[in-house]
């Protein structure tokens, strides 16, 4: 025990615990504020009465259960998913500015979801959560495939990122065409969604995304060990027994499914995947996956709850897209990381 203390273990653990505690406080506070603010103000006591008391006649019962709570749940689940997706991509490419939005993977998912929705809605059929996720997953894998092809040809990290941004533009442009050709009533839905928004979530949506994201996140957590070895590079990871091929395929599939889940339900939400893992690592001053992975999830949830609160309350009753708000906070972090990285090289 004495030796452990000398080695600074306590100082490190203290830092991890402090960061976790601060994030949890923000997390709880944002939930409370998100529950009570909106077009109808619901006092904290009424909200508690409606949520925990099961009091059907509590003021705002319907608004809470049908609108705000599923929206908050979606913010938490999808925010966490985005941060983890970014973390996995950064591990895969060994590049701190890789992320699902920056690499065009979100936009690829957006395109296939838009195509699927126009096709299905045009036939007056209903779109299920599973259809959303599957089409988004196909799109994110296609984009990821393009990015991988480019990454194979060029080793330069900056070229990789630029190519990803371009793929994103191409997919978004095609999505715009598709949306504009679609019939009137579906456009209204599609337009909001294609800008990035947590609004209009149903409990069915939340159940499906929770199942998928939870499974993928637990899987990611159990990748902590190889991710840690991979931080020393592929050759060293292989030399301690990591199956590199299987590991890389797993990273691609997991990051794509997490990103697909977000895009399927909320559209593209920008820069969370780059900003959150970076901020978390800067706070805890380590890149140990066992610490960073759970905190990334929590951090992503806090980040998205905060962004969504601003998006829906700043110009209420009008709503901004959550992606605009997340860009405002996330993009500067990306610029900072890029400039620091360029300075080091």
């Amino acid at each position, binding site marked *: 025990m004495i030796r452990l203390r000398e080695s600074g273990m306590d100082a490190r653990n203290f830092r991890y615990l402090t960061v976790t505690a601060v994030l949890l406080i923000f997390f709880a506070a944002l939930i409370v504020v998100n529950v009570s603010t909106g077009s109808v103000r619901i006092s904290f006591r009424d909200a508690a009465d409606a949520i925990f008391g099961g009091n059907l006649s509590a003021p705002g019962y319907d608004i809470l259960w049908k609108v705000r709570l599923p929206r908050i749940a979606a913010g938490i689940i999808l925010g966490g998913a985005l941060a983890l997706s970014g973390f996995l991509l950064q591990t895969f490419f060994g590049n701190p500015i890789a992320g699902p939005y920056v690499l065009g993977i979100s936009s690829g998912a957006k395109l296939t979801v838009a195509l699927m929705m126009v096709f299905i809605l045009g036939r007056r059929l209903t779109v299920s959560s599973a259809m959303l996720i599957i089409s988004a997953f196909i799109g994110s894998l296609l984009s990821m495939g393009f990015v991988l092809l480019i990454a194979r040809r060029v080793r330069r990290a900056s070229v990789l990122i630029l190519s990803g941004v371009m793929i994103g533009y191409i997919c978004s442009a095609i999505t715009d065409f598709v949306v504009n050709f679609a019939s009137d009533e579906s456009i209204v839905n599609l337009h909001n969604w294609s800008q990035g928004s947590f609004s209009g979530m149903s409990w069915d949506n939340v159940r499906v995304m929770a199942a998928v994201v939870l499974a993928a996140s637990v899987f990611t957590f159990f990748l902590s*060990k190889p991710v840690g070895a991979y931080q020393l590079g592929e*050759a060293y990871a292989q030399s301690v027994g990591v*199956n590199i091929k299987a590991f890389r395929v797993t990273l691609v599939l997991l990051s794509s499914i997490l990103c697909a889940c977000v895009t399927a339900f909320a559209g593209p939400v920008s820069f969370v995947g780059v900003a959150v893992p970076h901020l978390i690592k800067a706070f805890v001053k380590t890149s140990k996956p066992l610490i960073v992975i759970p905190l990334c999830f929590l951090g992503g949830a806090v980040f998205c709850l905060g962004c969504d609160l601003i998006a829906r309350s700043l110009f209420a009753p009008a709503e901004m897209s959550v992606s605009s708000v997340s860009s405002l906070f996330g993009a500067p972090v990306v610029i900072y990381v890029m400039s620091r990285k360029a300075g080091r090289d």
Partner: protein
Amino acid sequence: MDYFFKAERLSVGYHGKPVAEEITVSLKKGQILTLIGPNGSGKSTILKSITKQLTLLGGVAYLGGSAIQEISAKEFSRKAAVVLTERPKPELMTCEDVVAVGRYPYTGALGVLSGMDKEKVYSALRKVNAFDIKDKNFNEISDGQLQRIMLARAICQEPEIIVLDEPASFLDIRYAVEILDTLRSMADESGITVIMSLHELNYAKRVSDWVMCVKSGKVLYLDAPGVIFTKDIINRLYDLREGCYDALFGGL
């Protein structure tokens, strides 16, 4: 059959194209083999192939009696450790974190270090005289310290064979001699077999049991240092003019 490492007519290279061929060598436990030869002669390719980073194009390499391709990844990682030329650039890792990666083959599903693992990390750090820098950021240490840390990482993997690609390059004489002496004492005391490439001939002469001269993908000579380090052989290996060898080894 008391050879620990055996290579029989290895053919090594990339994408099916051989870079070096007809590599045959046998080593006992605790012996040090050094590969010398001009740049691009195929030394690194040989080292990468016997550590399974590259697939052998032909021939068989044996480790403790089994062919290396038949040893599972996990088992192989408990037998063989490497020190490579590439410098890892991990984010926010301390030297201790880097060394601890060497315990990977022994930890559980989540890679959490036990008290014993931690003890082994510390003893490896002490062995290379790097215990005092264990809390430093790995990206901020000097080349000499870096090589100590990478060796400590290999040591705490508890291998039976360590393969090193140019472990003394970029090091000043103090660090270089210290690293090579550590390898020598591990070979003598713990019976660890060492295979490495070196550019510094005077170091190779000092530390090796066997020296393999590789030139243009062929083994020119394989013998004890006393035989190899003569004017004729070294001049022929490096295409040197008369007199260069004396200049190199004049003081030794």
